[in-house]
Each structure stands twice: as C-alpha cells, then as structure tokens.
C-alpha cells in the first residue's frame, strides 16, 4: 500500500510550477524583463500608454514562448545582439550604411533583408535535396538555414525600425506599414510557424513545400524592391500613425502565414495521397501520413482563423478611430471578410459535416488564392481607404 503511494508521488512529482523551470528558463525571463526595462528607460518618451501595454505584453509573450520553445531564445538573443550592434554602427546618420563595412555588407536593413532572401532560397534548395536524397544531414542544414534566414530577416526589420528614426524623428515607425515591409513579416512568420511544426511532428519532409511559398514571397519582395523602389522608408500618412498598427498588422500576418502553411500542407497531402498508390518506398512516402497532414492542415487553419478574427476585430476598432466607423465596406475590409467567411465555411464543413481529405485540401489551396487576393490583389486592382502599398 505504501508502495503505491510512493509510486504515485514519484510519478506525479508535485513541484510547484516555478520550481520546474530550469536555471536557463529563469535566466531567460530575467534577460527579457531587463531588456523590457531598458527599452522603457530609453524610449518611454516616444510611447503612449497603449504602447507601454504592448511592450509589457511583448515581454510576457517572449518569456512564455522562450519557455515553450527553446530555439526561440537563441534566435531572439541573436537578433537582439545583431540589431544592437548594427544600431551602434550608425554614428553619423544613414550615410553610414554606405561606408561602414558591417552595415554595408551585413546588417543595414537592406543587407539584412538581402541575406534573409538568399538564405531562404538556399534553405528551400536544401530542403529539396534533403527530401529527394533522404539526407538527414542536409535536412539539419536546411533547418539551420531557415533559422538563420529568419534571424537575418528579423534583424533587418529591427534595424529598419531604427533607420526610420534616422530619416527623421517624426518619420520613425515600426516597419509593418507598407507592402514591402509586410512581405518580410509574412516570410518570417510563415517560417516560424513551419519551424514550430517541424519540431513538433519531427519531420522535415514538409520543408520543401512550405519554403517554396516563402521563396515565392522573397521573389516578389526582390522584384518589388528593385523594380518599384519599394524599399525606401516613407513617412506614415496620418491615418496610420497609431498604436493599433503594432498589433493589427502582426496579428493579420499570423493569419496569412498560417493559411499559407495550411495550403502548402494541402499540396503535400495531394502528393502523399498520390504516393499511397505507388510503391511503399517512394520518396513521397516519407511525408507524414495522410491523417497527420489532415490534422496539421486543420490546426493551421484554426490558428490562422483565430488570429485573423483577432486582426479583423482590431482593424475594425482602429477604423472606428481613424475613419469614423468600425466598418466601411472598404475593399480591403470586405476581402478580409471574404477570407474569413471562406475559412469559417471550411471549419464547419470539417467539424460538423465531418469532411476530410482531398476536398478539404483542395479548398485549403483555393483559400490561399482568396487570401492572396485579399493581401495583394486588393492593393493592385482595387482602390480604397487601405491604399497604403500600391504597386
């Protein structure tokens, strides 16, 4: 009898939550909190009350995500280190980006983003090789490349944030304000979501599919930067000067990123479904099972839907403040609604009608095109209040 009790105690090990944290976990929290204080001490003058709340929420979510997903810590610390280094190289002004070696070739936002682009493309190739050649080593390399690309992209954005203040203190703003900047954000978020699932499902076979769409985004980004000179930092129009931007846009892009991920998983689903009919040792059979793919597709659509809902609501609240009404049937708003309704229908089909498999996968791919139109097509073909990033 005592035996059972001891076994139970041993099994359930009732330590309080904070005692289960390792020394590293504690150190992580301390570092993030200190960084938060440092930010506050230096930039409080530029923040309003809401922005302080955003800062606090950022600190909390960074701590929690670092606890839940360890590699994030390495990335965040690297990004922070590189960004601070880059910022410290700007001593006289923006011109330093031309003369300083580190800025010019590595860490000015332009160079950082070029590195990001190159690394994502390399990662795509590495995933492809790893997939076709079934090479464990190349796979690990691909993962590392994806992490590095994401790190460089985030560094580029952070430095760009600073650079916008170097253009003019009144020009400075968070770099999520136009099509160029959000494309970077899109690549980064999609990559992070993918990396999360890669670890969770212990498979790299999906990498080539997901990185393919990120490479597509990178191609667009480069075209946009070089053909349309979109990389210049522009001052904000008055309507965009609001703390809302800091939460509305990132929430939106978690949504877009998750929908993109779901669509690429759907493509993988078709590939695997096809392979099921072939030999059991085909390359495509290294993809996760149909059941897992279906589940992953659902999860990422659910995640996307939740964040997209949040983003749309935030957008409506912002619109109420900036345009005088929470809903104006502006094309961008309307297309957000279309995207949302489409995925709501998808979720109901799955949950209440029990649809699975190919039709849902096909619908997820169509969903990506609808999403793409909402995010790009509207800016290209329709004009409205949201015309901030025209092509």
């Amino acid at each position: 009898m005592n035996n059972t009790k001891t076994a139970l105690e041993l099994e359930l090990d009732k330590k309080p939550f904070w005692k289960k944290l390792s020394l590293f976990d504690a150190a992580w929290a301390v570092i993030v909190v200190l960084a938060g204080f440092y930010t506050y001490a230096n930039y409080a003058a530029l923040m309003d009350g809401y922005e302080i709340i955003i800062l606090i929420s950022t600190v909390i979510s960074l701590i929690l995500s670092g606890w839940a997903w360890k590699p994030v810590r390495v990335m965040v610390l690297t990004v922070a280190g590189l960004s601070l280094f880059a910022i410290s190289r700007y001593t006289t002004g923006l011109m330093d980006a031309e003369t300083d070696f580190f800025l010019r070739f590595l860490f000015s936002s332009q160079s950082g983003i070029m590195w990001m682009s190159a690394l994502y493309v390399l990662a795509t190739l590495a995933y492809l090789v790893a997939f076709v050649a079934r090479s464990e080593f190349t796979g690990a390399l691909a993962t590392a490349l994806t992490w590095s690309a994401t790190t460089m992209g985030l560094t580029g954005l952070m430095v760009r944030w600073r650079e916008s203040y170097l253009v003019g203190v009144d020009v400075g703003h968070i770099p999520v304000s136009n099509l160029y900047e959000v494309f970077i954000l899109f690549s980064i978020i999609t990559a992070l979501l993918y990396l999360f699932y890669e670890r969770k499902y212990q498979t790299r076979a999906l990498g080539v599919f997901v990185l393919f769409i990120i490479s597509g985004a990178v191609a667009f980004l480069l075209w946009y930067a070089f053909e349309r000179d979109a990389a210049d930092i522009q001052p904000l129009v008055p309507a965009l000067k609001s703390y809302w931007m800091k939460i509305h846009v990132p929430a939106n892009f978690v949504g877009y990123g998750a929908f993109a991920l779901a669509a690429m998983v759907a493509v993988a689903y078709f590939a695997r479904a096809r392979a099921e009919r072939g030999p059991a040792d085909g390359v495509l059979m290294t993809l996760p099972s149909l059941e897992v793919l279906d589940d992953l597709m659902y999860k990422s659509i659910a995640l996307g839907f939740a964040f997209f809902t949040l983003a749309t609501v935030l957008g409506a609240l912002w619109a109420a403040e900036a345009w005088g009404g929470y809903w104006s049937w502006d094309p961008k708003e309307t297309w957000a609604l279309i995207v949302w309704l489409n995925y709501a229908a998808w979720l109901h089909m799955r949950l209440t009608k029990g649809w699975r498999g190919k039709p849902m996968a096909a619908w997820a791919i169509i969903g990506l095109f609808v999403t793409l139109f909402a995010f790009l097509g509207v800016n290209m073909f329709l004009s409205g209040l949201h015309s901030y990033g025209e092509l």
Partner: protein
Amino acid sequence: MDLPKETTSKLAKKITIWVRFLGSMNLAITLLLALSIASVVGTVLQQNQGYTDYIIKFGPFWFEAFKLMGLYDVYSSSWFLFILLCLVSSTTVCIYRTAPVMLRGMRDYRQNVQLRTLQQYPDCTKWVVQQPVGDVRNVAQSILSHHGFSARFKEEKDHQLISGMKGRGSRLGYILAHLAIVFICVGGLIDGNAILKARELMGLLEPEHRNLPANKVPAISRLGLDNMAFRGSVSVPEGSQTDALFINYKDGYLVQNLPFTIEVKDFRIEHYDSGQPKSFESDLLIHDARLAAPMTQTISVNHPLIYDGHAIYQASFADGGSELELRAWPLGVVNSKAAKLQSIVGEVAPLVVSEQQWSLEMDDFRLFNIMPSEDPAKKFNNVGPSVTFKLRSKTGEAREYFNYMLPIDRDGHLYYLSGVRESPADDFRYLYIPMDDEGGVGRFVTFLGFLNDTEKMQKLITKLKLTENVLPAKEAGQVNEAMLKLVQLFLKSGFEGVEAQLKKNVPLDDQQPVITLYIQVLQKILAAAYMDVLTAQGHDVSQGLDPGKAGFFTAATVAIGALERYGSPVYLQLDSFTHRQASGLQIAKAPGKNLVYPGCAMLIVGIFLMFYAPQKRLWVWLQKTDKGLELTLVGQSSKNKMDFSKQYQDISAQFERVLIS
C-alpha cells in the same frame, strides 16, 4: 380561439420543418459562401459613384439593370440585407437548438454511462490490479486532477466510476462565438442604413441632388434628432459653426440635424520635411444648451472626440473660403492693362473681359504644392500656392484652370505655369508664361498686345523693308499685307498652324524651302516687335540681347502659339491671399456598437476557447472480479483526437507504472 387539434399539429410540424431548415448546417454554409460572393461583387464594382459615371461605363440598359439589382450599393441592397438576416436567423436557431445541449454537456460528467458504451471508444485500456480499491481510487483521482481533469465519483452496487472532464470552455466558446455573430450582425444592421432605406420606401425620405446649403434643404431630405444612427460629414471653415451634416445617400445626399453646434476655431496641417502631410488637427468648440460653458477639444486623425453619443472625427480638409486678390491680364488686347480682382474660394462672380461676359468660379486655393524635385539631394519641392478656378462662357461651356502663384524653374528659366483642362477626367495641360525682369507677366502681355496691334505691326513690317532684304522683289504693299496676315495666323495657331497652312497652299515640290523662308521671316518680324517692346520699356538693345531676354523671346513665342488651345481671354495672376481652411469632420452616431463591440470580444474569446480548450473526458471504471480489481481507463475528446490519443497514452502509462510495476 381554439384551433382544431389537427391544424395545430400541422402548424407545429411546419414550424419544426422551418426551424430545422434554418438551423441546418447546409444552409449556414451556403449563407457564408453567398455572403462572400456578394461581397466580391461589391468590391469589383466601385460602389456609390455618381449615376452618370455608371451610365457612361455600362450604357443605359445595363445601368438600369444593375440599378434594379442594387449593385451600386450592394451592402445596403435589400437582397444583401436579406442574406444577413438569414444568417442571423440561422445562427440564432442554431444556438437555440444547440446551446441547451452544450450547457448540459458542460455540467454532465456522464456518470450513468455503461461499461459497454465505454469499451467502444478507441482509447480504452483494461488492467487487473491487486491493490485495495480505496488506493486505486485515490491513484485515479490524483492522476486525473494532476492533468487538470475535474472528477466526480459514483459508487454503484457492482462497480465504482470516476468520471473526469476538462475543457468545458469549448462548449462555452461555441455559445459565445455564435451569439457574437448575432450581436455583431444586429448591431451592424442598426448602424447601417437599413432604417433609412425603410423610410425611403415608405416615401418619408428623398435624397436631395442640388447643391444647397444645409438650411435650404427641404424637409423631405432632412433627418431629425430622432434618427438613432448615422454617419455623415461636413466641412466647417475656420471660425464657423455647424449644427447639421450631410449623409451621402444613393446619388444624392441627406441632411442630418445635430443636437449641438460645432465650431471650428482653428485647423492645422503639419508636414514632414519631405512635404507629405503629417497630421491634421482641429480645435473644436462644442456649444450645447445643456452645457454650462462651451467645451473645447482638439481632435486629430486617430484621436476623435466622443460627445453625447456622437463621435466627431477629423476626416479631411478643404478650403474654407480663402480671400484672394488677383490681377486679370486680358490676353491679346492692345495696351492690355491688368484689372484688380477680389475673389473668395467657393464663390461665383461675373467677369467682363473685352466686353464679353464670363463667369468666374473660384474652386480651390492650395497653400502648398509638392512636386518631385529636380535637385537629386532633395526628393520633393514645395512650389508654393495655387488657385483652381473655372471660366464659364455665356453659352455655359467651362474650362478649368490651375494657376501657380509663384514662378517655377524649368531648366534654369522661370515661368508662370497655368494648367487648363476641359473635363475633370483629363490631366491639366500647362501654359508656360516666361517671367520678365520685373518678376511678372507684364512684358509677355505687352508683347502679345503689340503683335495684336494691327497699326503698329503694319508700321513695323513696312519699316523692315522685307521686299528688299529677304523676299524676292514683288509689290511691297502686297507683300506687307501678306506678312501681316502671317502674323495674325501665327497669333491664332502658332508656328505649327502657320506650317500647316503653308503645306496646304504651296505645291509639294518646293514646300520645304518656302516654309523655311516664311518661318524665318515670321521670326524676324516677331523679333523686331519684341525689340520695339523692349525699347519702349526703356531697355537698350543696340548691343544685342542678353541670354535671359533672348530666352524670354523663344519661350514667349511658344506660349503665344499655344494660347488658342489655352482658350482663356485672360490670365489670372494671384497677388495675395488670406488663407482660410475648412476642417472636414465626420460625425457618427452608432448605438449599434454597444452590441458590436461586446460581440467582437465574445467572438474572439469564443473562437480561442473552441479551438484551444477542446472538451475531453476520462473515465475510470473499477469492478471487482475473481482475479482482482478490474480497472478500465477510457478517454474521449470532441476534437483534436490525435493529440488527445497521445495524451491518453501518457496517462495510461502513468496508471501502469503506478499500479502494475
């Protein structure tokens, strides 16, 4: 009144069928997709444009057809509202039918479940253990609570059952999220113009189409203080007040009265260094009989004022009646003298030029004009103020002009630019009037006047002795007459016009030399006239012209050649101004937001709960047998079955480790 029984049951049956139809998933999904498609239509076809634009675009037949379908204002068309209403009903029915089940499910630990039922779940494990039943029960309860399951215990004759449950939130989430849809749609319908539409259908309301001040609009187009929800705009000049606003409705507008008066004391625009606008701000004064003293408040974009349930937003800006002083230079008139002229933006005034009646409609004044800079160091250039106006002739035709106040540098020379266009759809084409040494347009106008002075030109041409110097000898009088005609032709249609005329009259063979000769002669005459003008103005031209004056001549002849296309009998030069701006306010009363905002919060909470707190159940069934105590562990989850199976495996492994090994 008693209905015969049969009828009631028939009616009940009918209602049941309808309710079932409304609450069906098929209808819900159809509605979601129908709503998306309808929304696509609204974005592809530009909404709420002027009806004339649509007629031009689609032609009369399709214009009428689309109008009937309500495609110019899809989102308040009856069929769109109908789909929305269906969605609201469908969701309501859905909640009505499902919520009780959900609520019961949240509280129900399913303690009456049969072992046979449990054994059919895929996640089911059975062990036989030797420990006393009390200990096993304790172990089960501890493990369940360790994983966050709340548990109930029930003892029956032949067995004991521990029922655990976790994630009740998802059920609550379902109710919250779906109720939110109803809240949001109903709130949105209140704030939308469904009510206006109903009033219009009943003939109580009619949009106004004429351009009238608010207080002149007839009652049929006015909305009183009883109107619950509206969203309109009004442009208030600095120092003025308003107690009404305009609501765009169909192809006209409605006037909404306000229960208070808004005064705009000051309006400010700040600019970035690059010249783009940085912020718009208005200082407002709210006058309200209910207030002891007027309330002051500054609003800006993203920082509205909420007063008495009305939200007052900074939406735009316009000219609020700037006072302008202009000089009108008649063009092509002998001894042209500028006439002083006063005007106020927004006003229409008669203008007499060379005894002809025109009407001058002063449309806009702009303090800044930002242009891409030619200087590579600077991106933008502020080229100063400008006015926009229309000149309407007696026959009613009008051209629109856009005049800069200050001269603008083009390739090192300074010009007064004046743009002209026939219709707002066109771009402005610009007349470049070269600036003279005094910094004005005087010399240009005088030169032009000289060329138009037949007497002076006759004298000049005679003096030039063209027959002796350049032209083949002929009868001098005839030649001079022809040359005067040439000048007049030039005044009418420029060098191109002269060339075109000559091409028509001269045989093809010797066209080129003849044209060259004539243009040369014309240039010579024009230059001589220019010299005369300069001399008359007291300049010494005996040593030739400096590059500035020479450049002026070339530019002036180009400009004169373009005058016919410019089409105005007068050049209006802006001398000075008193800038008065108007603040564009948008004012909204949206009581529906008291439903919409809580609805939004419920939606978000509900959706996150549904996705991330799925309901899970665990049962531990204990039954004595001959071999010992039989323990059956069963798990069930409504969603995320794969993840749950994994968790179930972990939990059952724990049972095994504690109780078996």
